[in-house]
Every structure is written in C-alpha cells, then in structure tokens.
C-alpha cells in the first residue's frame, strides 16, 4: 500500500487533489481511498488530505502517519507545519517552490522534488491554483498513477476549456519532473 499526504491551505484544492489521485489510481485498476483531515476549512488555513493506493481493497481508516509521498502545495507551509513528519526515508516529497531542493534544507532522508507549480498554473490557467499542476508533478516523480488516468480524472471534474487548461498544466509539470 502507498500512502500520500497532501499539505495545502484552505481553498487551494488539496482535498480535490486527493480525490483525483484516488479516481486516477482506480482507473489504473488499483484500489484507492481519499479523505480530508476533517478540519474546519477556512480559506488560507493549513489543511491536510490523505490518499491510499493498493492492489487490494483498502480497509484502513486511520490517518496517514508514515506517508510514502508528501505533496506540499504552498511552500510557506514549511514554516508552520512539519511537512516531512513520518515521511519514509525511501519516499518522496514534492514541493511547490521556485527554489532548488537543496536550498530548502528539509529534515528528511527522502528525495525532495521541487517544481514551480505556481508559475505553471498561472501560465496555463491564468490563476495560481496549483492542485492539478502538483498532481502532474506527482505523476511524473512517482509513476504511481498513469498520466492518461490522471487526465481522465481531471476531465471528469473540469469540463470544456477549463479541463483542457488543466491538462496542459499537468503535462507541463509531468514533463518537468519525469525522468
């Protein structure tokens, strides 16, 4: 089982991102689960969401304490939340920032992947809403979900030109981090 923790701020769509990962993973033929950390979600407040992916039905209902992957949608959260808490040493953390991974000096053995998702989102969507862009980066950095499945789940959520713009953002982010 792979466990993912999303850090965002209220209004940035962290919960939606977790849902879309779950839908994409299921599209790939795997079982999945996504849930928010059930806070009182005020705009701008730190929020948490979780996702699980497994080859068999998922029964575990506790929160995720030792994630394989962490996605940080807002780099300012690094000052207020322990985003690397419990992250597995062989895991990955993907952070939205224009800085290099080494400059962040994170306390983790896990691989740190950085991407300027805000810039990509502004270019593609005209707005700094980074949740879908970060999913593209997650997809490229981890290979846990197929890009086409992710795109399918995005298009199911956002129709018309908004869907197309989100696909563009996802592909840009994917290509930037994929090896």
């Amino acid at each position, binding site marked *: 089982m792979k466990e993912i923790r999303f850090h965002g701020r209220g209004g940035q769509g962290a919960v939606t991102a977790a849902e879309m990962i779950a839908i994409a993973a299921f599209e790939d033929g795997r*079982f999945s689960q*996504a849930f928010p950390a*059930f806070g*009182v979600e005020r705009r701008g407040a730190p929020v948490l969401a979780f996702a699980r992916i497994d080859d*068999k*039905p998922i*029964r*575990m*209902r*506790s929160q995720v304490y030792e994630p394989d992957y962490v996605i940080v949608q807002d780099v300012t959260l690094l000052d207020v939340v322990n985003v690397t808490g419990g992250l597995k040493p062989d895991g990955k953390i993907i952070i939205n920032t224009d800085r290099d991974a080494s400059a962040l000096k994170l306390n983790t053995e896990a691989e740190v992947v950085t991407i300027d998702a805000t810039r990509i989102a502004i270019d593609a969507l005209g707005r700094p809403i980074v949740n879908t862009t970060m999913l593209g980066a997650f997809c490229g950095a981890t290979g846990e979900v197929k890009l086409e499945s992710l795109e399918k789940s995005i298009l199911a959520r956002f129709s018309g030109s908004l869907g197309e713009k989100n696909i563009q953002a996802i592909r840009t982010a994917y290509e930037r981090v994929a090896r």
Partner: protein
Amino acid sequence: MKMIAKEELSLKERMARMRVVEGSYAVAHAVKCCSPDVISAYPITPQTHIVEHLSQFVADGELDSEFLTVDSEFSAMSSLVGASAAGARCYSSTTSQGLALMWEVLYNAAGMRLPIVMTVANRALSAPLNIWNDHQDSVGARDSGWIQLYAEDVQEAADAIPQAYKIAEDPEIRTPVMVCMDGFILTHVYEPVELLSVEEVERFLPPYRPEHILDPENPKTFGAFADPSYFTELRYMQWDAHRRALNKIETVAREFAEEFGRWYGGLIDTYRADDAEVMIVTMGSVIGTIKDCIDVMRSEGMKVGLVKIRSYRPFPTEALRKALKDAEVVAVIEKDVTVGNEGALLTDLKAALYNTPTRIPVIGFPAGLGGRDITVRDIRRVVDRAIAARDRGIEAEMEFLSLREDLL
C-alpha cells in the same frame, strides 16, 4: 447456491462495476434507488452532502420525491411522521445536535410504528462543540425504539438503505430504522463503490403497501392517548417487534447477498474468530483498521479475532453469546461513554454474557471520541491490555483509549 456464485465474482469483475465516489453520494444514490415519496431534512455537518445530493437529484428530475426543506430537525422528523402515517415511504438524515433536537419525535415515530429510514452521520454531542465523529448521538438514541444498524464502510452504508426499508416496512416489524455511518470518516471519504440501480432495488425491495394509513375517506388515528390499561401492551408490542427483527435483519441481509453478492453479516459478523483467544467487539468504521491490525498480529502468532456489531438495536444477545463462548478475553472498543457508568456497549455485552456459563474477563475502551483518530498503535494497546487481563486479572474494567494525561 446463488449467493455463493455471486460472492465468487472476481475482484476484477466487481471493480468493473465500481466507481470512486464520496460516501455521502453513495448513500444519497442508494436512497434514490429506493424511490422515497417524501424526504425531509435539515442540513448539518457532516450530514449535509447526503441531503444536498438528494436535493440535486430531485431538482434534476432524477428522483420523483417531495423534498421538504424545513426549519429544524424537529420539523424534519415531525413532517415525516405525518407523511409516513399517510402511507409515504420516507427518508431523512441527520447527526449529533440535529438528532438530539429530534428526540421526542424519534419516540413518536417508533411508537406509532412508522417505517421511516434515516441515516445518522455519527458525530459527537456538545458541549464542548465538536463536529467530528463518535457514536454518542445514536447510542444516546438507542432506547427510542428505532432499529439501529452500524456500517463498516461506504458500500455497507449505502447497501444498508434498501435493507433498512425492507426490514422497517415488513408488516411483522413496522419499526423505523437508523442506518449509522461514521461522520466524515465515511461521509467524506472517496472510495470505490458499486452503485445500485432502481431496477435492481425494485427486484429486492417490494413497494410499500401499509395496511393502515391516515385517509380522510376512512378516518383513523395514530399515536393517540393510551391510558395505563393499554400502554404496557403497546410497549410490549414494540419490544416484540424488535425481537422479531432479530430474524428479519438476518433474513434481509441474506436476501441482499443473494441478489447483489455483498454480505456484511446479519446481526453481527466475525473476522478470524474461529480459534481466537482475544476477541475485539466493536461497531462502525474502525472495523477496517482493526481487521488490518488483526492480520498483522495473526502473522506474529497472536490469536486475535473480531466481532462486528451490525445491529445494536435489537441487541444480538444470542449471536454474541455464541460468537464469544470460546474466547478467553473480550475487549470492547466503542465511540461513546455513558457518563456516570461506562461504555454503553460494554454494559450491554457484559449483561448478555452474565447468565451463561461463559466466565471470561470483559474490558472496555471508549475511543475515537470527538474525532480522535484510532490508530494501529491504539488497537495493539487494547490487545495488550486484554491479554494482561486474561493472564493477571482485570486491572481496570474500562480505560479511555489514548487519553492525554498531560491535559488533565
């Protein structure tokens, strides 16, 4: 047997029929497939999404129901009492303070033998204000006369709706049913679910044809005054209907499994219980976490099993006696506490075992109160405590799980 054939559907075949949806959507969809005539509800976290989806179905013309937007939960249940007495299939959903505000009408619905079905998105009761999950709300309503079923996952919370109508509307039962699902944990989770269809449900659930209804052409009265010479008998008949429901809940669960290939247990279910020395008894969504823990502990050679309470009212006394007769110790995990005594389920379970030859330690753990996460470590602690109670005697009959001593 048909049931076994369907149970043998491969995981791949089942996945082909699944969609990843929110728990609240799955429940609303199941309600839609039961074609209720009247829905009446007042929005309250974390139930809101259920009634929002239903309202959407009605607005979009996908569901032909009268959707009453009322001023309170008291009005929600009161309006359904009237509608149900007039012969309508009725649905509501609420939680916590909303359920508390319905209190006197809950007893009226049950006393008037109205087969209303309601989802309770379980949440703590104030004060202090807390919007998160525990079972204090519905456990507090356990004596209201409603049947109470508790769901382990989203699929069960959805599938319990047609089962609830079939139980409630049976002429032998005629008793309202609460389907309890953990607020947020199940209402807000996205996971793969097999959604029902109207046609499938129609094959399983007969139309509601009540024998007695309010009808101006044929005037009758419901829930009228009963003086001391009648009242006991009416209470007895309610009590007796719950006794009959013990069989009915099992039968309906089997019928559902035959039709849809999904089985959640009847009154109870068990997991790796056959040779279990330590038995955990619990209800609701924590069961999934416990099952995963049991698999790990079993791989370490620990003989741990689980009894899932699916029907809390009627209480499955006989089924529990049978399931626990060979256990060496029992640990109850429950998301409520009776202030001034102990956990409600702990008391019920001990009472069930008292007049039997089974003489084993039974200890209890209020847990997950007000949304406190129940972790793998917590489950291990419960099992450690249970083994200690078996080997060295009971130290504490009840212990608040993951109590933060530093805050006291």
